[in-house]
């Protein structure tokens, strides 16, 4: 049972591919028209910015309505059972509303339905949580949230609800382990193992599920998230600092400013580089963009980790050298790939979001400009700081 029509999502994918082939000159306009006739898509077609606005304002409207009803029913919702029942009713009401939006107005992830799905799931979770006894452990609450959120994800194929389900799942593992005496030591290994298992599971399901196109976005997000957790859980910096934060402090003692050394440090140093290395290798072999990008980012994180603990050089010289190396490396590869080699090319893809990258470049360059103009340690300009020079990537 699904909220949106799988056939129409399927047709939409075919149309998008046909449009791409037309732009590349492989299909003629009349052929594409015939394809459009054969694969109807009755979904509302809206602009991404209108969708963002509709998402936000739907949230405001629902929040206002919820608060208003609460005000009108003051006194009736004082005990946890009636408050829980009220939230469950609100959730049900929103589900009916989404049903009508989809049925009558052909909504398909146009903003309002996205936020209503998230809110319906959240109100249902609230209902469950207020009814549970007060001393219920946090990990039990998180674990109970997982099937509820997964049910929403299965019905709507929604990305945000799937993300919430994964967060609840990871939070359940995290909080449950911390209740055990050996939990803190096992945490990185459990998180790595679970993430790897999760990724394998998603990857298999994706290829075997008959309607997997319905969940394409949710699967893709889940793959990214599980692999990011995998690389983070093996990273020396993350393990050591998190370990330091979670360590129990003797009462009255201040928390040490430097996180203490961890056991098996050598193993985590190896994993810090090994996991991004495996990602980069898989990206190269399988020509998979997710692994390529995660490999690059993982190496950036690994290099920053080394710099964090072994600052041999002053920051200025370090940044200069790393910057020079990145410029040199990318220039060499760009020149090398002027001819396609090993199935790789430097020619931009038809499908790459060119406009997005141009705007991201403009925004990051503006940040760098603002930071550079603010750097002078002058009274007039305020304190000097590194600012956004690193554009938030690794530094």
């Amino acid at each position, binding site marked *: 049972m699904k909220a949106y029509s799988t056939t129409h999502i399927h047709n939409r994918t075919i149309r998008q591919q046909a449009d791409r082939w037309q732009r590349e000159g492989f299909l003629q306009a009349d052929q594409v028209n015939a394809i459009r006739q054969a694969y109807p898509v009755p979904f509302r077609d809206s602009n991404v910015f209108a969708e963002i606005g509709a998402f936000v304002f739907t949230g405001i*409207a629902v929040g206002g*309505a919820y608060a208003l009803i609460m005000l009108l029913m003051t006194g009736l919702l004082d005990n946890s059972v009636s408050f829980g029942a009220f939230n469950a009713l609100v959730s049900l009401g929103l589900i009916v509303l989404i049903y009508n939006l989809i049925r009558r107005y052909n909504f398909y992830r146009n903003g309002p339905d996205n936020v209503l799905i998230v809110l319906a799931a959240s109100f249902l979770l609230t209902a469950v949580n207020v009814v549970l006894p007060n001393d219920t452990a946090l990990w039990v609450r998180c674990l109970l949230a997982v099937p509820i959120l997964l049910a929403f994800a299965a019905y709507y194929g929604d990305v945000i609800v799937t993300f919430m389900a994964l967060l609840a799942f990871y939070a359940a593992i995290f909080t449950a382990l911390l209740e055990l005496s050996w939990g803190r030591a096992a945490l990185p290994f459990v998180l790595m193992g679970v993430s790897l298992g999760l990724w394998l599971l998603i990857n298999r399901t994706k290829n075997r599920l008959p309607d997997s196109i319905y969940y394409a976005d949710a699967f893709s997000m889940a793959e990214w998230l599980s692999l990011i957790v995998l690389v983070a859980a093996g990273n020396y910096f993350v393990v050591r600092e998190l370990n330091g934060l979670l360590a129990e402090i003797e009462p009255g003692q201040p928390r040490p400013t430097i996180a203490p050394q961890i056991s098996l440090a050598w193993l985590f140093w190896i994993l810090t580089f090994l996991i991004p290395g495996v990602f980069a290798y898989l990206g190269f072999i399988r020509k998979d963009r997710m692994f390529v990008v995660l490999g690059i980012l993982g190496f950036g994180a690994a290099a920053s980790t080394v710099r964090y603990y072994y600052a041999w050089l002053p920051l200025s010289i370090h*940044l200069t050298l790393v910057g020079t190396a990145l410029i040199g490396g990318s220039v060499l590869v760009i020149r090398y790939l002027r001819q396609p080699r090993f199935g790789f090319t*430097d020619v*931009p893809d038809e499908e790459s979001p060119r406009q997005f990258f141009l705007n991201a470049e403009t925004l990051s360059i503006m940040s760098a*400009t603002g930071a550079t103009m603010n750097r002078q340690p002058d009274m007039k300009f305020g304190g000097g700081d590194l600012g956004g020079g690193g554009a938030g990537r690794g530094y």
Partner: protein
Amino acid sequence: MSPKEILNQLHQQGLVSGDQHRIMADIEAQRPFSLHWELRSILYVGILLLSSGLGLLIYENYDNLGHLIILGGIGLLCMAAYGYAWYVRPPWTPALTQSQSPFGDYALVLGCLLFLSLEGYAQYEYTIFGTRYGLVTFLPAILFLGLAYRFDHRGVLGMGLTALMAWVGVTVRPLDLYLKTNFFDARVIYSALALSGLVIGAALGLQRQKIKPHFTFTYLLVIGNLLLVALLAGIFNLDNLRLLFAVGLAVACVAFDFYARREQSFLFGLMAAVYGYIGLTYLLYHYLHPNEYVFTFYLLISGGALVVYLLKSERVKERKSVVRHSD
């Protein structure tokens, strides 16, 4: 669904002929994997790191000789970057154009960032502009705007606009969602308004003259936000002129909304809706002091109305584009 599966299905339906199917299947199987944006992103991060590293290096204390070498080296690198960008410069045309080398645009950015560092240092160490602090930001603004037009570079245009905003006392770092200014100072609000009026007017005029019309988006995105923020700041902070600023905000929002529909650039419609909503909600709260019932009811009604409005204006756009297609 992979392109291959789609192709097979279209072939089975008779929508793609046998020959076409064979050729396209071959092309899809051999389509190389593009690393274009990944490589550009690495290059870009490298430039940002190098320029911030050198920018910090200038201020560190070395002996005289070492310091001169560093300054000279950065100066030479800056000139080399500009020189290379000029060597592979695109031909001058008012339309969209491209550098002759994939690295030209990046060299230009590096040159501009190094110039900023050197210029800031010259003022700090030798006070070359004396107490005319405005020049420190106005000079790079003019330089960058000129370079942006000559080299057709939207990033350098953004740098120029950032410098212009700093000139009137507004520091922005959009990626960090950072905005530093003193909007309690009426003079800053007026300067920001005057600047945004001038710049937006100039941008629309240039668009009309078809001189780099693709720059208008960047102008309106950057300076449009400055304008709307300044108008909101006036509503919040300038008690005597609150209603005048409210009218100004209403006019600006209507204008942005109109522009968004005409150019089918809906980001500006969203900006108008969000800033307008913030202003309206503030005014309602300030003048009517609604009780909680009225206020939650207002949230419900206004939120719902804006959703309908946003999705409806979308419809208008769709109908228009249908008409255009059938022309």
